[in-house]
């Protein structure tokens, strides 16, 4: 059996979520990767080195520069015949295009898997992670998005896969890219950071996130936020950790002024160690925290920064 894994990238580097997806794909046997992008030769090269991969398909075409769902889907649909499983990381890119592939093949998609039980049986969270369903697929091919935090990353080195250049599929012409406002930061990305410090509604304002930033700079940490902080406009949407934001599982997660709504816990409760700083000792976040500090964050966070 052979699995095709969609490589998440920015036309320069392979994103870590890809490595976890490769691990999940190994269950199916042989693993091929698909790099679709524009000017993405460096991504193709890096992909050949990923451990456990036997072939890398590279479609380098302007059509794929912005990963439009309609175009990615057409490309993958054209390749599907050769594969028993098609997997993508459950990123906003993977979630965007893969259901189109499943629909075109008249097959179900299994979203956001956290465990491969066997070649046709998978575990996935439902109800914002409040329940875990074990589902069995009767379709001929398994179309899957993978929750990256639930799988170990395949090594990015040690592989020596062959590259096969493939041509672009016909363009659909129904949508076009207008522009993007992507957050620029020197800090690590939330989904691959070893340490994350997140702020919630308790931060009170966007300016006060400077307190969090200062600690993050000392720790080399990524900065996140709860939905409440994003909805209040303190920080942009891409900071959001939670069921409908990013799912993270760092070595250390520091939650500051976050009460711990189910929605938020669903996005971070698999972190190795959780620290909560909150002045309300009844806050639900303390029920999942390894170390809880009941304190006013406006005292505790500057003190923490000094102590590091």
């Amino acid at each position, binding site marked *: 059996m052979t699995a095709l894994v969609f490589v998440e990238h920015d036309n320069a580097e392979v994103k870590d979520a890809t490595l976890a997806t490769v691990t999940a794909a190994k269950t199916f046997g042989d693993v091929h990767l698909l790099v679709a992008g524009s000017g993405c030769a460096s991504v193709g090269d890096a992909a050949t080195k990923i451990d456990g991969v036997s072939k890398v398909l590279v479609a380098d075409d302007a059509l794929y520069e912005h990963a439009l769902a*309609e175009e990615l889907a057409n490309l993958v649909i054209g390749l599907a015949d050769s594969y028993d499983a098609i997997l993508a990381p459950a990123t906003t890119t993977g*979630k965007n295009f893969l*259901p189109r592939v499943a629909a075109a093949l008249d097959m*179900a998609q299994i979203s956001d898997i956290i465990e491969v039980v066997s070649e046709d049986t998978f575990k996935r969270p439902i109800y914002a992670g409040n329940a875990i369903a074990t589902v069995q697929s*009767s379709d001929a091919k398994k179309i899957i998005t993978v929750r990256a935090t639930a799988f170990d990353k395949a090594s990015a080195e040690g592989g020596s896969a062959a590259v096969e250049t493939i041509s672009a599929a016909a363009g659909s012409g129904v949508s076009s890219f207008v522009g993007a406002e992507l957050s620029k930061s020197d800090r690590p990305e939330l989904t691959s950071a070893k340490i994350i410090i997140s702020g919630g509604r308790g931060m009170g304002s966007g300016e006060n996130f400077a307190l969090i930033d200062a600690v993050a700079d000392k720790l080399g940490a990524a900065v996140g936020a709860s939905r409440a902080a994003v909805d209040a406009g303190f920080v942009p*949407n891409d900071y959001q950790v939670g069921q409908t934001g990013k799912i993270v599982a760092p070595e250390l997660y520091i939650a500051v002024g976050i009460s711990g709504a189910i929605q938020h816990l669903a996005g971070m409760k698999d972190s190795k160690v959780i620290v909560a700083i909150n002045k309300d000792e009844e806050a639900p976040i303390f029920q999942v925290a390894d170390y809880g500090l009941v304190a006013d964050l406006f005292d505790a966070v500057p003190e*923490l920064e000094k102590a590091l």
Partner: protein
Amino acid sequence: MKVMVPVKRVVDYNVKVRVKSDNTGVELANVKMSMNPFDEIAVEEAIRLKEAGKVEEIVVVSIGPKAATETIRTGLAMGADRGILVEHDDEIHPLAVAKILKGIVGEENPDIVLLGKQAIDDDCNQTGQMLAQLLGWAQGTFASKVEAEDGSLNVTREVDGGLETVKLNLPAIVTTDLRLNEPRYASLPNIMKAKRKPIDEKTAADYGVDATPRLKTLKVEEPAAREAGIKVESVDELVGKLKEKGLI
């Protein structure tokens, strides 16, 4: 223009769901049900497009048990014009839902199908994209802003790296994210008025769709519980513990 808004009846987002003791699913008996919050945002956005003079008619569609009529009425009370209930009592998954919706699109010919990016029960995040593929339409998923122009839509999307804007030829599919808008509450007069708005009743068979799920749920379990740890008294004690563990 005409907008179709598919809505799903789900366990209310304030309900703490419990897994059934026989592990066949979650407890749904005597649990408050509501419109999926992302779908409520979709209804609201459709109404705003109508209020802005871009849209003439809003059709709300639900696929589910008879009780989903209430969910449609909620959309009608918010300001939608009429409803379609596709009565289906058994479990139904996104692919079959998308096929039924395709059948309805064939009859209704909407310019835009606006729906939630995911339902908060099965968390699949598939239906809009699948429908777009089945129809050969463009899609703008996870929308935080929708601007209607002549013959096209500009949709700003919440993506992992920030925001992205795409231009979609019409007809098109838009799926909503949390920050697109804040849905209104229906006023009492509008709730009364909604009772007189028409709701057509259909079944999956009317659209020639076999709604048998391709995925079988073998069991549903509680997630592994995380034990609460300890309270520390000071920042110094916290830093000491984290250093002890080699975390910082």
